[in-house]
């Protein structure tokens, strides 16, 4: 990337910054010591438990481990009952 491109475009992260970000992410997974298979089992069990109380859109469920050592479960719900989701009030 020449100087002019650098000026016009977004700043490239330095390789040192890339190393830092990659390390942080890799260590989040290393530290939890959870294999992808185990994560899948956890996901299935979570879906099963929540499904006892709410209708879950299983295909859209995302379970991830993010920075700060957090297990983040993103669980889309199917609309309850036969009516489709209400539209937000038109302004």
């Amino acid at each position, binding site marked *: 990337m020449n100087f002019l491109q650098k000026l016009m475009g977004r700043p490239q992260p*330095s*390789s*040192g*910054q890339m*190393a*830092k970000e*990659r*390390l*942080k992410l*890799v*260590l989040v997974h*290393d*530290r939890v010591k959870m294999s992808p298979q185990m994560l899948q089992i956890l996901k299935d069990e979570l879906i099963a438990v929540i499904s006892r109380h709410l209708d879950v859109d299983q295909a859209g469920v995302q379970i991830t481990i993010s920075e700060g050592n957090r297990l983040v479960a993103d669980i889309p719900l199917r609309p309850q009952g036969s009516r489709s989701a209400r539209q937000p009030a038109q302004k």
Partner: protein
Amino acid sequence: MSAQVITITSGKGGVGKTTTVANLGCSLALLGRRVVCVDTDIGLRNLDVVMGLENRIVYDLVDVVEGHCRLRQALIKDKRLSELYLLPAAQTRDKTAVSAEDMVTLCNQMRNDFDYILIDSPAGIEQGFRNALAPADRVIIVTTPEVSAVRDADRIIGLTEAAEKDPPQLIINRIRPQMIDRGDMLSTADIIEILAIDLIGIVPDAEEIIISTNRGVPVAFENNSLAGAAFRNIARRIEGEDVPFLELRDSSGLLKRLVKFLKQT
């Protein structure tokens, strides 16, 4: 005297554990302490060569553990410092020859005769590492500013905590300040942020270290070497002294030397 047992380990190979043990041993002995350096890398011994004592090995760690000789017969006194000793590893055996309990017993035998027992751990996380960790009162982890080394150091921190040792301290070796300034190397601050343990030393990447290993004279003996000074400072911190970290940038060193030279003329 009752010795403090310090295990120097890293996970990653080739980051400078053996060099660190040799240099800390010399530096602590130069401060007047009685020190024994123990090589636990059975089958791949190197502490003897780095200390320049390879020609003096008669008995080794495995001989002592198996009762073929007395401990005193296996300890090699350093060529230059009368208070520094080496207990070499065996070269023709492997790490299964010694157990963690053997290492604890061995260190207990030596505690009354030394101020410091420095244990050079092998790379990895298997039996050799466990043997080296078992007797530790204190653990020092050596890493370099590279992704693989830092990742492995993190694993070792976890294993050290699982073994119920006190939080380890960190030495960052092979630092290249110009690369850090260009953004092409992880900085000391980056590494501390990631690993979240206390820093006990920083050592620059230096040709003198290779040269000193070639000669079998640890760089801690060299008064003109920044790397040597770094190791001597770590020894002082181990002793409890509060020593500020060296400025590793070459340019400021050059300027200081120039100013000093001009003042002398």
